[in-house]
């Protein structure tokens, strides 16, 4: 079962020629190679559907339901034992490897922690299962301290639902490092965490890997994170590794066109973008949309607390806030999707009524975050685009039809898309259709709520471009709601920073980025990962 490392590559884990196919016979990995040395972090980068998670889970000899291993091997050469090929090990031996020699940190801790078991149990069970020769309780406390969590009795007795997202993720990391494994596979462990927490988790990972000389395989779609964390990087596209090398090499002198396009798509705070200046403030006359004293509470929780905001004609205002800041509530309040408790809204100086008139509904339009949920799967694209026209305008059927085709052209979707259903469209195409639906009534204000966060980076860049073009062509003012400050230069003229239901800072993009006034803004800027780390 054990053998010494005769090849002598020095890598702890080495995957070669890995092929995986669905049980239906479609191949999803076409011969993937990667290797990780002790104390090294290899980032496996790719967009959704690239097969990065499948490739990484193979390191634990695990293939998800519906997938089967069809070729290639994974050699393991740890500090204490070696295996020629993890994929041919008998089930019982493989079980002894998982969690002890090779461990896994899952993407979504909310789904991967058992809601019915206490935190202490979920960390200690991995020690008990592999016969840890030491004091289990002591090791649990030690490893929880390592990841920056409390380790007192009361914390160990908590259930997952009593922890924050960041704490849950650190419990997952603690369980993965408990047995001091030789290899750790981290599957996008910071998804859904805000930038400050993400930074802390990444620091923890870096620290643990260096201290215990673990080989780490870090799966991510975020090149900016890679720049600050990894030693080497392998770029995956459609089931293949298209480029691999050191982080500096790949990110500064990419060779494969796909890598280049990925890098170009990453929003960058330091990139200089040419834009026309848009008049705002007193010299621009009446604000297009004015919010004064907006407030909203759910029960005892105050979500919005006295928001004052102006949107000027033709400008793009970035509303920046992390999860829980109230940004979606504010955006939906502006779009009339929900009623605010206090405060007043005015469009061109005229107060917005509740319920809104057809003219007002036409003038302020809203684009939803996820294009996978915002289009009725049982309607054609044209059918969805026609809904606002039918209910908010007097256009007859041929006129509506013409307007729909016109609008599809505006978002760069050709006429053939009119008769298609959302199920047959990619995420980017769906979001284009959703944007077209919002623009079809020729609004003055477009509220875009995290419209790129459900999309891959390259698609995100294309959508941001599209929005800029459309705004230039139509002169629509935009409120761009996001958690990602890195997009600021690409999209916005001004920024309003929202924290805990209040606007803590407001100003032009230049002012806020160059000279942030509020501590929270400074903190955000400091923790946002950037490609600059390799330059």
């Amino acid at each position: 079962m054990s053998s010494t490392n005769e090849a002598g590559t020095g890598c702890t884990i080495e995957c070669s020629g890995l092929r995986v196919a669905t049980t239906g016979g479609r191949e999803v990995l076409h011969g993937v190679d990667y290797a990780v040395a002790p104390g090294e972090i290899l980032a496996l980068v790719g967009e959704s559907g690239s097969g990065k998670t499948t490739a990484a889970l193979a390191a634990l000899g695990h293939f998800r339901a519906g997938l089967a291993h069809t070729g290639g091997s994974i050699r393991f050469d740890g500090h204490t034992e070696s295996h020629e090929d993890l994929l041919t090990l008998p089930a019982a031996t493989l079980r002894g490897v998982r969690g002890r020699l090779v461990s896994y940190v899952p993407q979504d801790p909310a789904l991967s922690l058992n809601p019915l078991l206490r935190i202490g149990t979920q960390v200690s069970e991995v020690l008990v299962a592999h016969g840890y020769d030491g004091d289990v309780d002591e090791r649990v406390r030690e490893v929880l301290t390592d990841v920056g969590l409390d380790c007192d009795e009361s914390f160990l007795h908590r259930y997952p639902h009593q922890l924050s997202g960041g704490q849950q993720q650190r419990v997952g990391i603690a369980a993965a490092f408990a047995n001091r494994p030789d290899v750790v596979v981290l599957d996008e462990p910071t998804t859904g965490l805000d930038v400050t927490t993400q930074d802390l988790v990444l620091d923890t990972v870096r620290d643990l890997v260096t201290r215990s000389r673990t080989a780490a395989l870090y799966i991510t779609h975020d090149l900016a994170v890679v720049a600050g964390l990894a030693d080497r990087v392998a770029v995956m596209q459609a089931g293949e590794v298209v480029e691999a090398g050191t982080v500096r090499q790949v990110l500064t002198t990419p060779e494969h066109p796909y890598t280049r396009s990925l890098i170009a798509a990453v929003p960058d705070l330091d990139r200089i973008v040419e834009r026309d200046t848009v008049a705002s403030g007193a010299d621009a006359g009446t604000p297009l949309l004015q919010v004064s004293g907006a407030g909203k509470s759910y029960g005892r929780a105050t979500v919005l607390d006295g928001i004052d905001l102006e949107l000027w004609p033709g400008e793009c205002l970035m509303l920046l806030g992390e999860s829980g800041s109230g940004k979606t509530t504010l955006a939906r309040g502006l779009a009339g999707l929900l009623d605010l408790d206090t405060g007043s809204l005015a469009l061109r100086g005229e107060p917005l009524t509740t319920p809104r008139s057809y003219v007002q509904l036409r003038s302020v339009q809203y684009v939803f975050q996820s294009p996978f949920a915002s289009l009725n799967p049982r309607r054609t694209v044209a059918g969805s685009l026609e809904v606002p026209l039918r209910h908010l305008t007097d256009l007859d059927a041929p006129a509506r039809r013409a307007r729909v085709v016109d609008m599809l052209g505006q978002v760069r979707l050709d006429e053939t898309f009119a008769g298609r259903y959302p199920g047959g469209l990619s995420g980017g195409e769906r979001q284009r259709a959703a944007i077209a639906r919002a623009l079809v009534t020729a609004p003055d204000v477009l509220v875009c709520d995290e419209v790129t966060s459900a999309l891959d980076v390259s698609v995100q860049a294309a959508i941001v471009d599209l929005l800029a073009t459309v705004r230039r062509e139509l002169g629509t003012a935009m409120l761009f709601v996001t958690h990602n400050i890195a997009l600021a230069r690409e999209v916005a003229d001004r920024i309003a920073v929202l924290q805990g239901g209040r606007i803590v800072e407001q100003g032009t993009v230049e002012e806020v980025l160059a000279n942030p006034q509020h501590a929270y803004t400074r903190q955000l800027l400091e923790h946002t990962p950037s490609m600059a780390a390799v330059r």
Partner: protein
Amino acid sequence: MSAPAVPAGLLRRTFRRRQARIGAVLTLVVVAVALLGPVLGPLLTGYGVDDFAGRPFRPDGVAGTDDLGRDVLTRFLAGGGPVLLYALAATAIGIVGGAIAGMLAGYSAGDRTSRLDSLIMRGGDVLLSFPQLVLALLAVAVLGSSGWLLVLVIGITHIPRVARVARQATLSVAGQDYVLAARMYGVPRRRILATEVLPNITGPLMVELGLRLTYSIGYVASLSFLGLGVQPPAADWGLQINENRIALIVTPWGVLLPVLAIAVLTVGTNMITDALAKESADTTGEAPA
């Protein structure tokens, strides 16, 4: 992040499954017997439905005679109509009523100012506190036995059960952004329910349809079997079992034929239903193994 399963072509995909095809064949055989039997029976056996063929419980003819001396086979061939008709009618009432009640409840569940949801669901709880058969018996005791009363009672008792499923499905759809979008565009509630919600909950509703049909057949047949459904001298499978069961040892066909017909029918509809359920839960879109 993923949208709910789209039941486009659900029926087509369902009948690609072997199980659904077997179910369809079983169901069609029994339906054919029920539809053609009343015509074919007298031609095959030479006896009318109410004709006396001989003395009671004699093994004369193909399947013997019944408690009054009528030909069992003729009466069997003629007896499938009532159970099919009543079961279909009861199912229709249950599905239509349940879908409407469930969609209204589910759609108004998010609205704090509306009490419609709790009103509908609590009303349903009351109906749900009776086994369906027991409520039907209560109705028969008070109003006397009649076919259409049974249809009404069984249909009504289906409503809260279907409504629960429809409400659950509506809740998951009503939270989707495309429904919110339709609201934002001022689309009226009836239209939202008809064009945004209903097309997206046909999967669970189809499954309920099959399930309720299977149960309706069982209830209608059971009530006739208890002597409280279809009344003599009509020819009906449930009633026929009731009439002939005392002579099970002498002339078993009088019981066995209708029992088998009901068994084949319910097994057939249930197989189709199960295939529907599997297919609408399957979102991978890959062909069944």
